[in-house]
Structure formats: C-alpha cells, structure tokens
C-alpha cells in the first residue's frame, strides 16, 4: 500500500489584522494512492485551505504547522514549505469556477501550451499533441482547441479544466467544488467523468465539496470537515448509512432529495469562529446530543477498520 498523502496534525492559518486565524486546526489524515476522497463541509470550514495546502498554492503569508507528506516528499514541515518539483507535477488543481479560471484572451490550445511549458518546457507542437490525446478522454473533440473560453458552455469549460489538470500527468488531483457552478442535472455527468478518469489513469483524487449526495457517488472515502477539523472519516457506505458523528447525520437530514418530500431539518446555529481556540468539542453549541464529557476535546474513536469519528458518543451513536 502506497500512501499518496499523509497529514500529521496539519495546521494552516492566516494572519488577519495581527490575529492568527487557523483555518485548518490540526488534521490527521492518510490517503492511499489511487483512491478517491471527498472532503465535505460547510463554507468556511477550511476545505479550500486544505486543498490549497495539498496543491501548493497557499499564499506566501499563510502560516503552517505540523507535517504534510505527498508520496516521499515532505512539503510542509512546521513553518517550512517546499513545493519545488511538486506543484503541477505531482499535484494538480481543478479550480472551483471554470468561468473565471480560464484566461479569456487565450484559446484552449494556448492554455495547454502555457500549462505544459511552465511544467515541462514543452513546445507548441508537443502541447497540441498532448491536448488532442487528452480532450477525447473528457468527451470533447479537438475543434475546441481553437475556441476561447467564452465560446464554451459551463460544462465544456469544466471539462477543459479537467483536461488541463490531466495533461500534467500529476498523480494527485484536487478538485475544489467541481460542480458548484454547473446546472444540477449536469453535475452528475461531471462527477462521473472525474470518477472514470480517476479509475482509468489510477489517480489519487481529492474532491472538496458541500454537495454531499452528487459528489459522494464516486468516492471511496468520505471525510466530514467542520470548523477546521475532520469530524468523521471512513468508507463512503459506512459514513452515509451508519454516520457516527451527529454532524454527519444532520448534514444528511438537511440535504434535499428528489422524491422525498418530508420537512428538512436544518442544523441550528452557526459554526464557531475560526479565530478562537476551543477546549470543548467544536460542534458543542449545535449538537442536540451534548453531555458533560463534550466540554473536553473529543478523542478519535475507532468505529471499525478505517472508520473514525471525533465524537465521545460515536460508539453508542444515539442519533441512529
């Protein structure tokens, strides 16, 4: 078993007005090579910051702590960061908004050229050859090479972005909300495309999302993130059908599903502020199952092989 990503107490934060905000507050996570992991959570829970840390696009003023290892390369070790030879070669990023992520002045062919030139110093001819090999894999024909981004639909732009990430031959792909700007009925197509490509090219795929139902159809593992920490992680079926953290259960109950018309149960309250340090469970204020022990930081509970939860009540699970 080769480990593609290893995080040990990884923290990532920013200084805003002389105050440190830890967006990722100590994450321990291991991802095997060739698997798909979905990281699910609400806005502001640190998902995108975690994605930036993996792909090496953290801003220079970001603070880090702990350790992040991608295959054999230690890229974050405390405050030190070294992404030389990693960014674009071992990891590639599929950004959130295809409309604003492509350069409106460049044709699709030129996008391929600049991406491949910056990583491999390749010339136009070689980049065109790679583009023509990759585009059919994402269900686009080579006629799009001459087109500018505005001439493509949202779904086509998203496919071009996926093709650009594949062209680098990076082993780890990180897709940040790949479906949030796409029509609901097209989301599944894009997600299935990602899943198919992951299997075909044997990539390690990390999908960041808050769209629990659509995205999780392709993943092997699901990690539920809340206020900068991973609350539950485990195989997809186990997490969805046997959730061992109340937040996971409540997220499932709050998601509208076609054909099910019972009243939705919103999660009361709001996530805690990122600027504060908490001794108690981070979900305490919103949890209907809280008790005395929840006022101390929960230990990670092992439910079964590769299914973990950060809740004192994970084993008894009164919400099930």
């Amino acid at each position, binding site marked *: 078993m080769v480990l593609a990503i290893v995080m040990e107490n990884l923290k990532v934060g920013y200084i805003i007005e002389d105050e440190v905000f830890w967006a990722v507050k100590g994450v321990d996570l291991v991802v095997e090579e060739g698997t798909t992991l979905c990281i699910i959570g*609400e*806005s502001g829970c640190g998902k995108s910051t975690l994605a930036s840390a993996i792909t090496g696009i953290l801003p220079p003023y970001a603070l880090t702590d702990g350790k992040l290892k991608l295959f054999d390369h230690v890229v974050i070790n405390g405050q030190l960061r070294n992404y030389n030879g990693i960014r674009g070669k071992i990891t590639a990023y599929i950004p959130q908004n295809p409309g604003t992520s492509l350069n409106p002045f460049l044709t699709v062919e030129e996008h391929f050229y600049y991406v491949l030139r910056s990583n491999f110093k390749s010339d136009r001819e070689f980049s065109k050859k790679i583009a023509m090999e990759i585009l059919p894999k994402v269900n686009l024909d080579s006629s799009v090479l001459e087109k500018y981004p505005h001439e493509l*639909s*949202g779904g086509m732009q998203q496919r071009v972005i996926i093709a650009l990430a594949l062209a680098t031959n990076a082993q780890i792909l990180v897709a940040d909300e790949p479906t949030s700007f796409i*029509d*609901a*009925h*097209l*989301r*599944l*197509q894009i997600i299935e495309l990602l899943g198919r490509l992951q299997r075909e090219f044997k990539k390690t795929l990390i999908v960041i999302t*808050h*769209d*629990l*139902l*659509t995205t*999780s*159809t392709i993943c092997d593992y699901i990690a539920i993130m809340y206020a900068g920490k991973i609350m539950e992680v485990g195989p*997809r*079926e186990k997490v*969805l*059908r046997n959730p061992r953290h109340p937040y996971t259960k*409540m*997220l*499932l*109950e*709050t*998601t*509208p*599903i*076609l*054909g*099910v*018309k*019972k*009243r*939705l*149960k*919103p*999660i009361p309250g*709001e996530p805690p502020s990122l600027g504060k340090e908490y001794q108690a469970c981070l979900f305490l204020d919103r949890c209907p199952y809280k008790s005395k022990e929840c006022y101390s930081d929960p230990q990670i509970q092992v439910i079964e092989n590769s299914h973990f939860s950060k809740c004192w009540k994970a084993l008894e699970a009164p919400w099930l």
Partner: protein
Amino acid sequence: MVMKNPEYIIKLENVTAGYLITPPGIRSLIKTRYIVLKNINLSVNKSERIAIVGSSGSGKTTLLKVILGLLKPFSGRVFIYEYDIYRLPWRERVKILKKIGYVPQDPFKSLNPMLRVKDILREPLEAHVIRGYKESKIESKVKSIVKLVGLPEKVLEMYPEELSGGMRQRVLIARALVSEPEVLILDEPTSALDVSVQAQIINLINDIYEQFKPAILLVTHDLSIAQYIADRIIVIENKEIVEEGLIDNVLSNPQSHFMKMAVSSYKDNKNKLKLEF
C-alpha cells in the same frame, strides 16, 4: 386605482422577449433583436406555487425581468391583475408592481453595503406603500418583518457585510415581504448557500406560504428544491415552455429533454448511494 378581482395575478400572453444587441463591424449601425423567450403563455393564480426550471441560459431570469416590469417584451402582453403593465404610465406601473415581492439570486451582491438593515427594509415601505405612513408604524412594521423571517432585532443596526449568507438571504426575503406582496418571486434563492442554510431558507419560504398564502414563483435549476417549494412546474427549454404540470406528475412521467435528463440523473444518484430516508 381600483383593482378588479380576476382569478390570476400575473398573466403572460404570447410574450416574445429578449435583448437588442449590437453586431460587430458595419452591421453595428443597426441593432438586432436577440430573442431569449418565444411565445410564452403563463398565468399565476392566487396562492399558487409554481417552479420555473430549465438549464442555465434558457431564459428563466429574462422571464422574471419581463414580469417585474424591467424588460419590455418585443411582442405580447403582460398583465398584473387586469392591467397590461407595459401600456401603463410608469407611475401607475410602479403602483401595480408593489404587489410583487422579488428575492434576487445572490445575497452577497444584492444588498446595498452602505445601508444598515433597517434602512434596507424601510426603502420599499417609503418607495411603495405609503406616503403618510407614520414613522412609528414604519418602525414597528420593520421590526415585525425581521422577527417573521427569524432574525434577531439587533440585526437592524448591522450592515450587510456583518451578516452571514443565510442571514442576508433572510434580509432579502424580509425586504420582499415588507410591502405585503401578493406574489413572491424567488430567483434561485438557495444557489449561493450551504446545504444546512439552504434547508433553513426552504423551510422559511414554506412557513411564509402557510402563514400568508402568497403566490410563489420560484426559478431554479435544481429539481429537488423545486419539489420542496412548488406544486406546479414549468419547464423552459430552447426559449419556449416545453412542459407544464403538477410537479409529482411531471417527475413521474417527464416528457421534455431537460426533465428526462434531470430525473434520470437524480435516480441514478439515489440508486448508487442506496439511500433510504
């Protein structure tokens, strides 16, 4: 202005609408019509809940602009009650349009950042309702509407940037409701929100319907949300209405390309995850 009481509140007759565009080159001297909606016939009756669905660019938002009196159609007539709004003088049209409350798509861009929430909520009252409305009455109205949408009173003194996405969406709903409209138009009211907040807003819209029974016109591309809010569904595809009916019937027997794709995609999804709720 005296209003008779027809069955419908909004009625569109053979509406063809779109935008005037300037073509490139020598042809730029003559503006050409770019048609977005063709031969639209639609009526919204009292207390009816309708969802307008269609893929991006199908003309849903343009349809709302036509109904809201913001875009004069190339042909056809738009009635609110018995008044053809585009044939009324502007002042009269504004009076009629106060019967419609509008909740725009993006809560992050739709609130004036320079105004406190209380001033945002006062604006429609001052503009529409009611000259000679006493100051104390305006204040109590604003307070009651904030309470209705589930916000604490302290929000009134805040600026939009101090509020979360869900709170901003509630302010937008409050702003639409403050002039006591008979139709509430919601343009993708949850698309910019998280799932947990989305559920709060869906429940809030349903609670408001139960309490005041306004007609609701919801525009969305997400069928699962349409199903929670609406009774009737209208599908727009290639500039035209291609399917229409009770939501349960349309979902169980979809006819248009959009609905077939959408329903099968949801079914696949549900089967793959083997969800049982």
